[in-house]
């Protein structure tokens, strides 16, 4: 089984298509919707966790791309500015997945992008505002 989080961007031309439904039927992929929103230009954005055989997930992503959906693995969209972060740990109390966690006994604050679901709770909680969560570097998921 292969589990990864992807950001899907649906152009407005395809938002009436049962794309996710087909993904399950045709490629036997399990999914978990972490976030779904419709932006100003009627473009749909979804954050999904896919679980399935690697080959199936690959085929599924190919299908999505053929339908005109832009697919990006999420990890690249979450960033911690290590210059700003002063390792206090305030974020660890609010992070629901443990992506932000404390390494003991050093009490260092570590960030594991693979576990991050881009919920964006850490952005406003961070006193130093060191967390940047965005879809394309310009859209704030926390908003």
């Amino acid at each position, binding site marked *: 089984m292969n589990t990864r989080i992807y950001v899907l961007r649906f152009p407005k031309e395809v938002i009436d298509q049962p794309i996710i439904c087909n993904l399950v039927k045709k490629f036997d992929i399990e999914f978990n919707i972490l976030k779904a929103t419709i932006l100003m230009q009627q473009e749909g954005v979804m954050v999904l966790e896919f679980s399935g055989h690697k080959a199936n997930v690959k085929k599924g992503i190919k299908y999505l791309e053929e339908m005109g959906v832009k697919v990006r693995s999420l990890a690249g969209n979450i960033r911690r500015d290590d210059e700003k972060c002063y*390792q*206090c740990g305030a974020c660890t*109390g*609010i992070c629901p997945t443990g992506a932000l966690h404390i390494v003991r006994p050093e009490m260092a604050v570590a960030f594991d992008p693979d576990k991050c679901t881009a919920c964006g709770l850490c952005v*406003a909680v961070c*006193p*130093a505002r060191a967390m940047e969560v965005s879809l394309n570097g310009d859209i704030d998921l926390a908003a």
Partner: protein
Amino acid sequence: MKEYKVQKTYDEINARIRAGEAVVVTAEEMVPIVKKHGPVEAARRVDVVTTGTFSPMCSSGAIINFGHSNPTIKGHRVWFNNVPAYAGIAAVDVYLGATEPTEDDPLNKVFPGEFRYGGGHVIEDLVAGKRVHLKVIGYGTDCYPAKLLEKEVTLAELPYALLLNPRNCYQNYNCAINLSDRTVHCYMGTLKPKGRNATYCSAGELSPLMNDPYYLTIGMGTKIFLGGGIGYVTWHGTQHNPNALRAENGTTRRAAGTLMVQGDLKQMSSRWLKGVSMQGYGSSMAVGIGIPIPVLNEEIAGYTGVSDAEIFTQIVDYSYDYSHAVARNYGEVSYAQLKSGEIEVNGQTVPTAPLSSVVRAREIAETLKEWICRREFTLEKPIKLLPGVS
């Protein structure tokens, strides 16, 4: 006068520092030394224990003199990067406070407000060498006729800038929890409803006043690491309360002593003075402070050997009790428990998160140790001790 088996003076310790012979350890390193050898032997072996703390510290700010212009102006209203500074001191002297929000900040109009920029951020920007927009409005007098002054300034161009923090370095602080059914956004961070998380804010065994709980060495004139440079303790801080409840080892189990500190802003660093934004509360500034404690005798050695497991604080509800001055707590926990990531409150396991950076506190204690070992930093004997237990 107590009789001690080991007695050292500030002069003797400074002589050892200058000779490169002083034995300096951090407060963390002192814990196993005192546990293994006992306070008397530890006092013989160690000359100085360095402490450190780095966390948001409200009651911080800077006295700035922005210099006379031509024509002259008497500052009536003054802003740095649109953050108001208090100008009611003199013509061109102002006090810029860390928690002052930007003039047009939406505050908590849409709750919880973000408070992205404030006085603490201006101080960080100045120390980082950035250009800051200064705006001064005067009402015009014969000696100060100008009514408006606007210019970009850097810290280097300002004639005088003094970090002057009326209350820093709290000796212990509450562990915060929220027992209501709505999320609480406060200066202790974001607290989930029904006690599903807890926050705390102390460097514990590294914290300066935890290692000198009765203020035997820290007082007016004590030379310290402040914001990456050199500063001094210049008075006890506001809300200093030496009579707070104490444990047998002398450490306080409640918020207790505080320090007023100051130092020349121009020799400080933006790594150790950081503007912070506390969602729903306001802006503030994280301040780095490190205090060297001279091990004058075995009593002081014993105090500096205190560990996280021996320092306790109370759990306070921030949904109602704190804001309505209800003197109630939900038990006490040690810093060892808090740092483990879980405590127990009302029989329920609650995850904990710190607001004070242990990593940075350790770095400060290590830096101060290096300065002393390199003979760049000697100790000052305080000219007056802080108010103690009465």
